[in-house]
């Protein structure tokens, strides 16, 4: 009874918040609703006995992905009103295609037959006595070991690709050069100035770091280090 009640509560919140994700005007609200959706989905997983998936959903999706979305939405100043501009214009075409697809989908699903053993499997998704983390682990690391490794390679390629396409090492990065830092003395950078009492900085003006200008790269370095002193 309580389980059924809990299911309906979580399911209703899930559906409502999911529809809010697509209908909210403010993209930040969309992401926040998305997080709510994830939490409710996790609760549903828990009810179904898949505690590992529930935790993963919270940790990975709420903890990482949703927060990433939030950052993207807030940092990239995407003009969503502009994106929606074509909506009215394309609505008839889009709606027609959507309806056609829906009809086709129904025609396809008309031939759906459940496998005879599906009903019994549905009531016993978990092998008794085996933890479902262990079951997932066996699937991933034994049965689908090859795919797991291959997916790792896909991620490696993605990483190499991201670095190849975006990293620009022009040699002007402000890297820490410890020997240069240690070789510096106070005399290189500091100037003692006598300032008349009450005159403030008027006479002296703002002093620039005492660096020879000809070498721009070195100048950049010293600028950077100046901050530390």
């Amino acid at each position, binding site marked *: 009874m309580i389980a059924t009640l809990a299911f309906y509560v979580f399911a209703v919140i899930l559906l409502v918040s999911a529809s809010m994700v697509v209908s909210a005007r403010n993209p930040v609200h969309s992401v926040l609703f998305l997080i709510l959706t994830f939490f409710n989905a996790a609760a549903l997983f828990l009810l179904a006995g898949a505690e590992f998936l529930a935790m993963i959903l919270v940790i990975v999706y709420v903890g990482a992905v949703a927060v990433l979305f939030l950052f993207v939405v807030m940092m990239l100043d995407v003009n969503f009103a502009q994106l929606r501009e074509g909506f009215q214009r394309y609505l008839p075409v889009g709606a027609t295609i959507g309806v056609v697809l829906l009809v086709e989908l129904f025609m396809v699903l008309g031939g*759906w037959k459940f496998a005879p053993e599906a009903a019994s499997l549905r009531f016993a998704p978990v092998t008794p006595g085996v933890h479902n983390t262990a079951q997932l682990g066996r699937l991933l690391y034994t049965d689908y070991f090859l795919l797991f490794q*291959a997916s790792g390679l896909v991620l*490696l390629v993605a990483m190499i690709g991201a670095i190849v396409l975006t990293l620009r090492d022009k040699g002007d990065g402000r890297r820490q050069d410890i020997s240069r830092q240690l070789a510096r003395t106070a005399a290189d950078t500091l100037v003692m100035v006598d300032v008349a009492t009450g005159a403030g900085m008027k006479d002296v003006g703002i002093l620039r770091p005492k660096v020879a200008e000809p070498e721009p790269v070195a100048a950049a370095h010293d600028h950077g280090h100046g901050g530390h002193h």
Partner: protein
Amino acid sequence: MTWTAMNWTLAVPELVLACCGMGILVFGVLSKRETFQLCSMLTIGAFLLTGVLVLPGAYGVGYSGLFTSDAFSAFVKLLVLVAAALCVVVSLDYNEHVNLRRFEFPVLMLFCTVGMMLMASASNLMTMYVGTELMSLAIYVLAAFARDELRSAEAGLKYFVLGALASGLMLYGISLVYGFSGSMAFDKLAEALADPASASPGLVVGIVFIVAGLAFKVSAVPFHMWTPDVYEGAPTSITAFLGTAPKVAPMALLVRAMATPFGQLLVQWQQLIVLVSIASMLLGSLAAIGQRNIKRLMAYSSIGHMGYVLIGLAAGSVDGIRGVLIYLVTYVFMNVGTFACILAMRRRGKMLEGISDLAGLGRTDPAMALAFAVFMFGMAGIPPLSGFWGKYFIFSAAVQQGMWTLAVIGVLTSVVGAYYYINIVKVMYFDAPEEAFDPRPASLSFVAAVGGLFTTFFFVFPAPVVAAAEAAAKVLFR
């Protein structure tokens, strides 16, 4: 699950290649100097080593049915490795010249090749998908490798967006097939579908989506839109690569997927393949006529060639599949050779891509003009060059199955296609010569010579290739 059932040794070539790739990557990252040339050499070495490991042919099913090693996969893997190795050789000088000398280049090609080998061995829809993604992801990056060039970045982005869409379609198809048949393993699917009447419409829709996803990868009409732009925009060494191995592996996967799990549903997918094939042949031969840029021309040419290859699949017989494999072999060598010539089109240090730039090559560089002419005649299918034999095996298989329409359309379009191939020969030999090209680097001459010799003398020793292709094709029809 016992370790004997894993049979993990079947994948030793892939494992070795992947480990070599990671080794080369670490070496490239750690070394202080510029290591493009050295890493390329190491990559070629890794390809050779892997080829040697593929040769002995340890056959069987491993990784609980995810991975199959048989004569078919060995054939495709060797072809892919040879193509990839030749493409690395081709890129050596070009990348140095256009300032793309970064060690990630060969490494990405290597991982792409791992993906293609996985595709060749896939015997589960999931392996198929992961292999395809590994291949595609590496190519997206490679297409955008000249990141400061607008065209290259555009090519990469275009390919990525459309490729992601195609992957989505394929995944949707896989999910439909899984939902309606209850399995993703090829052998289980074949069992479940042994009676063609048991196939529900949902399953057929799933197959259509899978075909659409793979047709995108082999750039068959109507999923070809990306091809000319990506071919033109990508660095030319990548265009050379795109036209060879990444066409072979998806085609082989399409053949295996259609022949093994869905073999009994021949009637269901045959008309689809026939339509795609006819459309590709027509577009490939007609759209290429107006092209002025040789890379775009090669793009349309590859679309047309994939149309011919699909005839063999549509025939759905051992002979048809044998034709597909032989055609792919001849196509790879002609294509690599042509691109070696295109990469040698450089005048005063500037890369050229116009067909008119070839004017008078017959007088300024007879050797290169001869090689180019051999490839063009080969692609047009003039006997006794290898291109003719590829077409011969394909068309005869179609005729045997009574598919006269396909064969006739194929012959007609190759006559139309011959026009633009031979037009290039005409430009080279009969137009007024322009200033000579810069001296060719040895690596390009080598690849052009390999391709040219294979194309010319294939008819003398066709037996090994034909026998291997026959053995490979028979595996799919046990």
